[in-house]
């Protein structure tokens, strides 16, 4: 769980990688599903600084993220959360990209990027606040430079583009990155975001996680061609990477960030991955999904391939495995404890933060409702009445 502050790129970067675009860009892969590190003429450069230690740390983050996800799913099954959108299978796409960001970059994601949130340093309990139904959102976006989850499909891509317009105005070299799914590419907002990003050449990265499904709809319903190819039509270069390959994802994200920081404008990344779980805990994928497909993808698991690579390198020691297990256990415990101990919100919280300045309509409703609560002789309600503003 750290951010990538080293300035990547530089004059020696192979330029062709920076310009990858156009139809049917080849899928970039640096680690095979069997854990083999395959070399790549352009993208190796972008992960040349990744030490064995860092590889272990990526492995740890992915493992911890998976554990967080499974624990949250369990918490939902146990009635502690109202809903959870599992990210199972998408750990490399999330950790690989998030770990390349600087802390002053800003993330606008969908509901599924809880692994990204972990890498940004979001508090574990804050991660669950909204899914437990305790608050409309979990954290203050400015403390970690990541907006809270967006449920309206694609809406966040415009926010990222606008934020990047602001970065450009400020003359800063940070970047806005926005995460969205394959289904989202059909929404007008995502396409308009590309129009604006291209027109103003602002520093924004469009990170599309193609997990092959939008609830029950296969990606082919959204597009017969590769999603990465959408971008060229807007004048935006794109990269298509194996989204289950943490190094390939890092490399691609660094290419995009580097371009953005240098004033080269937006980049579109399609991270090809797979949603191993249900859409959310409310979904039943057996109604629409061929179990064989799931099996195929299980063989391309993003975490086991890094384990295999570490093993080849002799790094997958028992010590490392124990250390990661301990960390995951601790994180899961902290999260579970924090979740179950989370105090319920107060009734009059419903009126808080609708406006940042007094509003006569709402103030009256709050006054009436606290009188209503007080009419039950509820001493709590009476207290709340005073503390409400």
């Amino acid at each position, binding site marked *: 769980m750290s951010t990538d502050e080293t300035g990547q790129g530089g004059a020696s970067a192979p330029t062709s990688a920076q310009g990858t675009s156009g139809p049917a860009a080849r899928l970039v892969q640096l680690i095979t599903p069997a854990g083999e590190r395959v070399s790549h003429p352009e993208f190796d450069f972008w992960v040349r600084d990744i030490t064995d230690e860092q590889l272990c740390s990526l492995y740890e983050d992915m493992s911890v993220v998976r554990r967080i996800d499974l624990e949250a799913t369990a918490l939902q099954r146990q009635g502690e959360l109202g809903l959870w959108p599992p990210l199972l299978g998408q750990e490399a796409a999330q950790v690989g990209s998030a770990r390349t960001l600087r802390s002053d970059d800003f993330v606008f994601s969908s509901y599924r990027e809880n692994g990204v949130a972990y890498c940004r340093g979001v508090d574990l309990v804050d991660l669950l606040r909204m899914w437990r*139904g305790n608050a409309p959102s979990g954290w203050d976006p400015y403390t970690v430079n990541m907006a809270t989850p967006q449920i309206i499909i694609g809406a966040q891509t415009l926010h990222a583009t606008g934020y990047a317009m602001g970065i450009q105005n400020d003359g800063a070299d940070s970047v806005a990155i926005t995460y969205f799914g394959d289904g989202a590419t059909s929404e007008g907002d995502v396409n308009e975001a590309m129009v604006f990003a291209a027109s103003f050449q602002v520093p924004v990265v469009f990170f599309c996680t193609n997990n092959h499904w939008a609830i*029950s*709809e296969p990606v082919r319903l959204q597009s017969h061609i590769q999603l990465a190819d959408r971008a060229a039509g807007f004048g935006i270069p794109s990269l298509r990477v194996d989204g289950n390959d943490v190094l390939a994802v890092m490399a691609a994200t660094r290419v995009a960030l580097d371009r953005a920081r240098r004033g080269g404008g937006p980049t579109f990344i399609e991270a090809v991955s797979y949603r191993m779980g249900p859409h959310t805990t409310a979904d039943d994928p057996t109604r629409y999904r061929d179990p064989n497909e799931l099996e195929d993808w299980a063989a391309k698991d993003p975490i086991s391939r890094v384990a295999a690579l570490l093993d080849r390198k002799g790094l997958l020691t028992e010590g490392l495995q124990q250390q990661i297990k301990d960390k995951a256990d601790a994180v899961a415990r902290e999260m579970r404890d924090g979740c179950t101990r989370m105090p319920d919100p107060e009734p009059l919280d419903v009126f808080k933060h609708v406006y940042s300045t007094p509003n006569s309509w709402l103030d009256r409703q709050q006054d009436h409702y606290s009188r209503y609560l007080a009419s039950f002789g509820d001493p709590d309600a009476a207290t709340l009445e005073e503390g409400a503003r």
Partner: protein
Amino acid sequence: MTQMTFARAINAGLRKSLENDPKVVLLGEDIGTLGGVFRVTDGLQKDFGKHRVVDTPLAESAIVGTAVGLAYRGYRPVVEIQFDGFVYPAFDQIVSQVAKLHYRTRGAVKMPITIRIPFGGGIGSPEHHSESPEAYFTHTAGLRVVSVANPQDAYTVIQQAISCDDPVLFFEPKRRYHDKADVDESAGPGTALPMDQARVLTQGSDVTLVAYGPLVKTALDAATAAADEGISIEVIDLRSLAPVDYETVVASVKRTGRLVVTHEAGESGGLGAEVAASITERCFYHLEAAPVRVTGFDIPYPSSKLEMHHLPGLDRILDGVDRALGRPNSLSGLEG
């Protein structure tokens, strides 16, 4: 008579419409293979094919916009918006096209489009999944807006909506999807109560209580509770939200002299304001108290742990009834 859930009743009504008119087509996200996230369209694609029950790409403006094109071609599209909070990307197509094209073409082009929207709260969902946007549409000329409150109406009104030559927004109270009741499947859209008419559910003499959709059940419960205290409530299920069947409401208020309107949507500018204003206009000299609104607050829909505070429940409705009757209530002693 068949016992069925609310959701199943809509499914049965959709099936009837698909059977009776080859021009009926269903469009929406996840309505085909999955049968909809609430299973309302369960089995329909299997039985009617992919061209009648269409899983669409994820774009609400396009779903409604292509429905407009299908209507131009003589089809009767039935659109599903997955949740209330996802109707806004389609707002332009609904308000500027669906609602206005019959007028804009001087009657040449009909827009017999039904837009189904599961709406309202009470199911513990995260944001954007529990909204009550009906007032945006009741204020939009050219649309008809209905909501139903029981499986029988769900079954017949969906068919009436589909066969209506005007566009209809059909609001489904999602927290009632699992409620069960007997449905008479022989009741055709032609013989059932027309969809633009309200229904008086309980006769009462003290106060008229107007509700629709999810709160009809709550209103009936309130009437039962009030009866114990000797208060006689006339509950009206509005059914049609645009136009409102004021004839029925006026007749009731002229007898009771008092009106309470309830809905989940926020108070300011909600349908309750329209009902209160119109009833005041038409019954001013019969009213013994100002019409009372018992509604959601003017807030974005709150987190699920707090939704019961936002949603009008039985007690809040009874408190409103007390206000209308001038009995002691939570605001007693407060000046306007």
